């Protein structure tokens, strides 16, 4: 029996600085590694700790294991020191995927807040790779400021591939020409055919709640809205207890949930 809590060593192939506090690591995936959009890995720094990070690369290129990480504390700070050629210690993949196939024949809308764009990116790749399957692809991305934007150049490429991309910032800095304000403000323009829209939301819980409410107001069915939740996570395999949210173990039953399954739980303080 192999132990689910012992990591594998992978080789870092490339490190890209995405913004002042966020970077992407590409590593060589182990032979036979496969994942679905929305799944995450546990990234380990020996002697320091471990944290849950979503896979941000394309599921069609499973040989390249890509993570986009925002530095917020000890483990992420150590991870940000890794360079090409270093070893990266990984367990996974874990968790439930974005149900991209639900958007087949429909419109797909992705709503991202901050680092929330990283876990959504694989779904975007998957949808754009099969343009005939998903009717229209739209992305609403909200960042704190222009300095916090992620994947700026790639967003242009998504546009070129046919996606409608809206970007807004909370705070405008000099030179910012785009919209200012919360990401929900972008939604009326991006939702073209509400009854045939499937939406994936990833970002702070409060943002997802407001976005879900706005989508409902626009006529998108709650059953067609999916969110991803975050809790303290130690094991990733449903045995440490930490990531509970009411009836769910987020690592096992999530992190991607159909919104109606969690909407009530998300409104209860300190659940």
């Amino acid at each position, binding site marked *: *029996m*192999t*132990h*689910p*809590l*012992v*990591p594998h*060593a992978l080789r870092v192939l490339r490190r890209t600085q995405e913004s002042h506090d966020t970077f992407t690591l590409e590593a060589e995936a182990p032979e036979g590694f496969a994942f679905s959009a929305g799944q995450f890995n546990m990234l*380990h*720094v*020996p*002697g*320091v*700790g*471990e944290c849950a990070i979503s896979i941000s690369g394309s599921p069609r290129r499973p040989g390249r294991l890509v993570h986009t990480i925002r530095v*917020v*504390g000890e483990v992420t700070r150590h991870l940000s020191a890794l360079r090409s*050629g*270093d*070893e990266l*210690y990984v367990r996974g993949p874990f968790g439930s995927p974005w149900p991209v196939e639900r958007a087949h024949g429909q419109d797909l809308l992705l709503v991202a807040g901050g680092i929330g764009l990283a876990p959504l990116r694989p779904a975007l790749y998957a949808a754009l790779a099969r343009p005939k399957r998903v009717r229209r692809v739209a992305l609403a991305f909200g960042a704190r400021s222009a300095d916090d934007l992620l994947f700026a150049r790639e967003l242009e490429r998504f546009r070129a591939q046919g996606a409608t991309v809206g970007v807004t910032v909370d705070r405008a800095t000099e030179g910012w020409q785009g919209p200012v304000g919360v990401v929900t403000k972008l939604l009326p323009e991006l939702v073209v055919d509400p009854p045939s829209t499937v939406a994936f939301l990833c970002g702070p819980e409060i943002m997802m709640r407001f976005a879900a409410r706005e989508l409902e107001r626009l006529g998108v069915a709650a059953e067609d809205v999916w969110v991803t939740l*975050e*809790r*303290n996570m*130690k*094991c990733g*395999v*449903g*045995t*440490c*207890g*930490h990531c*509970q949210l*009411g*009836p*769910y*173990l987020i690592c096992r039953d999530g992190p991607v949930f159909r919104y109606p399954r969690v909407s009530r739980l998300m409104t*209860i*303080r*300190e*659940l």
Partner: protein
Amino acid sequence: MSSIRTLSPPFVLPRARLDDLFERLRARGYRVIGPRVRDGVIVLDTVKSSADLPVGYTDEHAPGRYRLRRRNDDAVFGFVVGPDSFKRTFLVPVQRLFRARRDGDRVRFSPEPVDTSKVALVGARGCDLAAIETQDEILAEGAHADPFYVARREAAFIVAVSCSESRSSCFCTSFGTGPRPTRGFDLSLTELLDGPHRFLVEIGSAEALEIATELGLSTASEQDQGAAAGIALRTSRGMERQLDTQGLREMLLSRLEHPHWQDVGSRCLACTNCTAVCPTCFCVDIVDKSSLDGESHERTRQHDSCFSADYSAVHGHPVRNDVAARYRQWLTHKLATWIDQFGRSGCVGCGRCITWCPAAIDLTREVARLRDDVSLETDP
């Protein structure tokens, strides 16, 4: 009452030959762990012979209170459960998972070997067996079975004991987990004090049958069997505490915002005693440490508690900052959401959390309050 899963008709073991049973277990390579008195408390530890057991002792339980007393007989198992449970044997409090060593620019991981040493657990009660089954579900049968747990579990021989008396904190009958062990044991003893001091021996595994045969035990008479059944019946009937499990999950989930959580939260000290003594609580922390020179590392897994603030920390702040939220998490997990997560109750009715809560918080009473049972308002 559910039928008992046994492999043969029961035998009878004279009290004087209890040590022969321990001897047989040791001869088969088992270290015997059982109840013994230490610092005024019955704990679980290695026992060499029946003289190490709390012979002639009994225990008094009340919310926040525990006391050992002498009995006026020589009963070997005349007490119920102490603060320890066999959880410590299978899900050990601190388990090293791997060691890692730096080797140039690489790190080499050496997974910790599993412990396959044989242990015989003596004195597991019905509630304890149900607790083991509950943890098996999570740690031995899930998609990611835990090899440390599984190895220890497979190396264990369980000698259960049927309870002859209950204590005020016991409520196993509310969950049907006791007082008589019905499954999950190798061998089960019912102590018979009428007439010659002896035990009714029920057989739950092939190995137990071998041992009974090696010991040359005689088959129990109908009278002995009747006596054991009578004891179990008396014990169930005498159980005072009850938890109304009817619609319990739905009741709790519909009252997640009930003001009573604040009330209990103001009494709870967040000391983590209840989760430490609970035989089903399985939450663990994963801790990575480094040697001073940074050359070697190790990862351990340690018992953790949903009552500690760090437990739920995300982005620098605990999700459950308020103690009321932590108590709600614990209680609703035990009695409601455990069912969603693992298909059964997370409480087996052992009463440990009631006895060992320094604030004398009693979950059965909190549940009754949440049900708005006015009959409780008149209680002192």
